[in-house]
């Protein structure tokens, strides 16, 4: 597929070059969203951009009077809070919101609907519930949801636990501690549906013929997933997906199956410990902590389900020194506390000083990835031919995190793209905002 591949590459290059500017923007550190307990969302129409050069009509939840956005604002609330969400409707059809996983949702105003009270065109409705349990959840339209969720009326809800450090703990139990967290809201799209709505053929939509050709993480297709959050050329897709961490840290993956298909979400680099499903800690008894957690290299993402998994990486046991050996690569591995890792860098000391076991082929025999640094070592650049590399300015180790239904790594018949992102393990000392 040389020709199509070459067509998409310039966009990939453009998106990845944004990494050069990654010293700014605290949007990368935590999950973007709205915090508090009272929210006003507005159902609106707008167009999103897809990396194949297309734009697609969407309906989405806007923050107050803001722009339609896909997905809707990530609502971040505290456990125990009484959450009030007022939905205003600017669309020509009634809309609503349901909150799977929340109990005791009450409504005021609006008009009766099948699943919940709805906001009529031009009207509004208010939902109230107590965020009783910490965890990762979603919300979506409860009005003709097969169509309206496809159109974009979907978003994430995060409930922070009652804990000493709720910004670094997923649930009340201390064993759910994390250093960094990232959201992975997975959706797919059949653009024919959107075209039918756009051209006034909404009631001709036949979901039995559903044929997705676009796949998203947090409302963007790869490689747009890697661009910075809130970039001006994607005003309706403010959320990016570019997890970054240092060796030895714990990264919490909050994964949501927000579409209608299953997706095997494969996180390269290491296993992750699945600690919760649907906002419920995998524990044998209340308060036990995630003692029923298990590690895997793929998250089986089922529609409507959410997952919390903790990912760690140190390079332990690779059998060679990830910082290089010899006088050019002098460094120490100091294990003062007896855990086999350097106390500051988390280098695995038993592998310290072991040389890279193979020699790498001559450059002319190789094809180089844009994130390949020319060096096998973490945080170090090596020699590259002119024009190669350059998309990994801090020389991190990079790993594809993606749907392993590889068909979904395409954007409307063009490879690569789709449901993919990259994790960057940054060398110790590289700032991660």
């Amino acid at each position: 597929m040389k020709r199509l591949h070459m067509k998409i590459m310039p966009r990939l290059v453009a998106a990845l070059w944004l990494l050069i500017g990654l010293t700014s923007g605290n949007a990368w550190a935590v999950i973007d969203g709205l915090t508090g307990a009272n929210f006003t969302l507005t159902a609106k129409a707008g167009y999103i951009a897809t990396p194949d050069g297309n734009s697609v009509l969407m309906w989405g939840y806007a923050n107050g009077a803001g722009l339609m956005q896909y997905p809707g604002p990530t609502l971040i609330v505290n456990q125990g809070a009484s959450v009030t969400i007022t939905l205003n409707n600017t669309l020509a059809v009634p809309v609503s919101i349901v909150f799977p996983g929340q109990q005791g949702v009450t409504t005021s105003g609006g008009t009766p609907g099948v699943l919940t009270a709805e906001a009529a065109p031009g009207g509004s409705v208010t939902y109230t519930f107590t965020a009783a349990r910490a965890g990762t959840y979603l919300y979506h339209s409860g009005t003709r949801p097969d169509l309206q969720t496809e159109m974009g009326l979907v978003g994430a809800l995060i409930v922070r636990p009652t804990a000493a450090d709720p910004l670094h703990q997923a649930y009340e139990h201390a064993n759910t501690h994390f250093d960094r967290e990232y959201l992975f809201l997975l959706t797919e799209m059949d653009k024919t549906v959107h075209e039918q709505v756009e051209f006034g053929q909404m009631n001709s939509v036949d979901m039995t013929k559903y044929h997705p050709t676009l796949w998203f993480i947090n409302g963007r297709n790869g490689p747009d997933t890697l661009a910075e959050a809130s970039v001006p050329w994607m005003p309706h897709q403010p959320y990016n997906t570019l997890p970054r961490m240092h060796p030895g840290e714990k990264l919490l993956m909050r994964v949501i199956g927000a579409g209608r298909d299953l997706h095997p979400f494969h996180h390269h680099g290491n296993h992750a410990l699945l600690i919760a499903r649907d906002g419920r800690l995998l524990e044998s008894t209340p308060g036990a902590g995630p003692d029923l957690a298990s590690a895997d290299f793929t998250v089986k993402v089922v529609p409507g389900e959410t997952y919390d998994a903790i990912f760690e990486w140190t390079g332990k046991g690779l059998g060679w020194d990830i910082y290089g050996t010899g006088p050019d690569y002098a460094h120490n591995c100091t294990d003062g506390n007896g855990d086999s890792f350097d106390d500051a860098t988390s280098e695995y000391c038993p592998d310290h000083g072991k040389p890279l076991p193979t020699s790498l082929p001559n450059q002319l025999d190789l094809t180089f990835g844009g994130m390949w640094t020319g060096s096998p070592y973490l945080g170090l650049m090596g020699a590259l031919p002119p024009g190669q590399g350059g998309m990994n300015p801090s020389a991190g180790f990079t790993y594809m995190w993606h749907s392993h239904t590889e068909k979904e790594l395409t954007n409307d018949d063009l490879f690569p793209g789709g449901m993919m992102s990259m994790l960057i393990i940054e060398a110790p000392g590289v700032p991660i905002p």
Partner: protein
Amino acid sequence: MTIIRIHPAIAALTASLCLGVSTAQAEVFVQCPGDTNGDAVIDTPDPNHPNAVCKHLTGGDGFVTMADGRPLYMFGFSDVTGLAPTAVMSAGDLAANFPAPTLSFKEGDEVYLTLTNVGMAMRPDLFDPHSVHFHGFPQAAPVYDGVPDSSISINMGASLSYYYNIVEPGTYMYHCHVEATEHMQMGMLGNLYVHPRQNGTAYTYQGKAYTTFVYNDGDGSTGYDVEYPIQIGSFDHNFHDASQAVQPLPFADMRDTYPMLNGRGYPDTINPNALPAPADNGGKVSQPVSSLITATAGQKILLRISNLNVTRFHTLSLLGLPMKVVGSGARLLRGPDGKDLYYATGSVTLGGGESVDVLVDTTGAAPGRYFLYTSNLQLLSNNVEDFGGMMTEIVIN
């Protein structure tokens, strides 16, 4: 810790030196400690690498035969371990296997895996590199992970050696990650698993003695008598035909028409022998892996089930015998504090890139044939033939 960064001038000098001596590369080059003649067989064990294990694969193209007789063009790997470097290019030509050669290692091995790209004989317009992605390898580093965006991939006529220090047992899988949707649909997929250190130690579990185990369980609860890797895969013949005919590839309309286990549809799955070589391969066998499972009543069967198809989830059901899942994603199913998370089931559901370790206890089972089949029943088909597809048999003697 101090990291000394390479001075730009040194880097530039290194680059120019490398480029300066780069006129005579592009050759078959195996890296294997203790191998003196480049055939990836250890001749004199290297005392510094007593646990070294070497393999040599080629990446290229070839043909396979579907269960309804249709030949399909494919990309794939073949095993050239033991061949002299001068014999590798011709041996790898049109030698793609489906599934890729099974790789079986044991915990503690130091694996040196060399991949030589022999090019695509049927597609001289392509100059695709290839890679080996050891799917699920824990604590991976990009240099040996085979992801083209993050790493290096090997061009035609040359070799790249991967190194894996094997520290975690379990059922993994491997595939080429270059232009992944295309190269994986085209067939560069294979079984890969790791035996635990505990093997060879005797444990008695529920009155039976075992010396082979799925994991280091410490109690024999993952003991088994016979093991079979079962890899779910499927091909879209329209995609393969378009590739062979140098036509645009149907990514969006990809729809697999040949559901398979270990590279064959039923009833080819139960053929105990290699399938005959396709005519287009010049006599080279491309589907050597049978999925016929045989055991004696009372034995425990380990099914190492993985899924590397690129289009959908699949459910495998077993009719008449119990399944117990003891591992998933190349990890023993136990909680962080050791709680047993094994579960009994009648079926397992896997997306692409997932694996499970299933024990089948045949105690008390009547001799006969038992079916392991997809309960996505429309996939019991070989394209338009409506009997076949993703199914095989367990024969209890």
